[in-house]
């Protein structure tokens, strides 16, 4: 694909994201439109709708970018951001915050607990996988950490003394952007921006890795450096995204597949295109959610899973057709 065509695609995706951002700002519990005139109008727009819209864009970009980077790094189309165990760690941290009652006492305990969980999971992965390991060791370490974190999350749920806390935990795990404030935005923004920059920096190395580790090394790329960028970028971006919004399924897995054919399959180009498409997709899903279920009884993560799963099924069938019987 030509460089001009690629630039036009990025511009189109950026335009789409911007449009969805505006639509999101114009969406409220009563359908489309600005909030009611008066003193509360500015407050609703800036304090409620703006953080929600920007968080949707940021988190969508983080999920899709991390998924694209992991798929490129591992050369595996089934890789997704949860693979490293960072999101399971963040979920566990948040659940502990709810379980311990800290979240009820102090609102920010929830995202801060999530960030602490993500940080611990990342440290555990690096210790477990060692400093100079290949992709397979990294995946195994991620799966191990995920299992431990999920088991502990189940234990916390199991031992929750009152049913309200259980319901809160279960709903939180489903992923949502409702009632997130500017404070949440300021907490997530720097982490996701830095994490995203680290992931974008892997582009040329991911292109080289398409030909295998030996060729990538021959082309002058340090495999250890790429691995550190992918792990650190995912830890920051996905740790922050999960700590703020819970688990939002399928975006990181599906979006890179959507954009890959549009950018000539090149891993370095899949990265920015995925980030923009992921932002637009989560914004759109969050808008649809508020229109379909204004009372907020359907969670964002459930909607993305319900949209993502059939799409993935279709993808499997399309791949099967392409590869023949």
């Amino acid at each position, binding site marked *: 694909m030509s460089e001009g065509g690629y630039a036009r695609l990025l511009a189109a995706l950026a335009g789409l994201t911007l449009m969805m951002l505006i639509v999101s700002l114009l969406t409220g519990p009563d359908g489309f439109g600005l909030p009611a005139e008066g003193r509360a109008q500015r407050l609703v727009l800036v304090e409620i709708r703006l953080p929600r819209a920007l968080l949707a864009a940021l988190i969508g970009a983080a999920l899709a970018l991390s998924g694209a980077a992991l798929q490129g790094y591992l050369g595996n189309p089934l890789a997704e951001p949860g693979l490293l165990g960072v999101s399971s760690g963040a979920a566990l941290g948040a659940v502990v915050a709810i379980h311990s009652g800290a979240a009820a006492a102090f609102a920010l305990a929830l995202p801060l607990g999530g960030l602490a969980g993500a940080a611990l999971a990342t440290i555990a992965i690096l210790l477990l996988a060692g400093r100079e390991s290949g992709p397979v060791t990294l995946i195994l370490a991620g799966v191990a950490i995920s299992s431990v974190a999920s088991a502990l999350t189940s234990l916390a749920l199991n031992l929750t003394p009152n049913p309200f806390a259980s319901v809160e935990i279960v709903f939180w795990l489903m992923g949502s952007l409702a009632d997130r404030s500017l404070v949440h935005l300021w907490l997530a923004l720097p982490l996701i921006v830095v994490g995203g920059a680290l992931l974008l920096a892997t582009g040329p190395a991911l292109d080289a890795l398409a030909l295998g580790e030996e060729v990538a090394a021959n082309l002058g790329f*340090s495999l250890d450096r790429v691995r550190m960028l992918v792990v650190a970028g995912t830890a920051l971006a996905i740790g922050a995204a999960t700590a703020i919004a819970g688990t939002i399924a399928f975006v990181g897995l599906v979006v890179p597949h959507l954009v890959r054919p549009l950018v000539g399959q090149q891993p370095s180009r899949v990265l920015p295109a995925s980030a923009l498409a992921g932002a637009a997709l989560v914004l759109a899903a969050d808008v649809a959610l508020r229109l379909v279920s204004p009372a907020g009884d359907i969670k964002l993560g459930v909607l993305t899973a319900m949209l993502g799963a059939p799409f993935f099924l279709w993808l499997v069938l399309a791949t099967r057709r392409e590869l023949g019987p």
Partner: protein
Amino acid sequence: MTLAAEAVRVELGGRRVLDGVDLTLRPGELVAILGANGAGKSTLLKALAGQVALAGGSVTLDGRRLETWNARERARRIAYLPQARHVAWPLSVAAVVALGRLPHRGRFAGVSAEDQAAVTAALAAMDVAALAERPVGALSGGELGRVLVARALAQGTDHLVADEPTAGLDPAHALGLFAHLAQLASAGRSVAVATHDLSLAARYASRILLLKAGRTLALDSPAAALSEARLAEAFAIRATTTTIDGVSIVVPLAPLT
């Protein structure tokens, strides 16, 4: 402009795979590395490309140990073609060959005219220009092999280290490949190539390194290295060497038992 392995020793999984092998690649040389399976050909090529840790000895480029080179600078001097043929995504042929230009490009810079010329020349040299827009998933094994050779050629390095590039190639393309490698050498580059095609090695190589169980059996002119006694020792075969129309031919006749 020389790439030199001196007394190289490599141990993999506690086993000594290379033991005291010397090889100096000078500009203008095409050295064929021959030996039975497991003789250490691939490991020697990896050592020459700086991709395996040495247990002893050294590999130097322009007199400086390879490990002390900046990886990107090294990538502009030595191209390495591994034996495994692997492409993770269905990239187009042209995109795969263009990856060879990564060491020459700015981190996020586009493709320069020089890059484009190198890619076009490499595509033509390996007779894959007609496939340029095809996804690599739709290629045959031999075609993919040629595309990956073209990637290494596009890198435009002084030294090319290629591991069995003719495997799976039809006779016309195998001949064309060796002729191109010889042409690169006569243009002042140096090439080290591991192969099992004894006749092509005899015909095109300027020197032959014969390995057996990680040690040098012979490092000599093709005629001397491929004597019947040496072939018997290296491959445990009875073989005969002949010349037809001035072309050296090595024919294995029977395994020695």
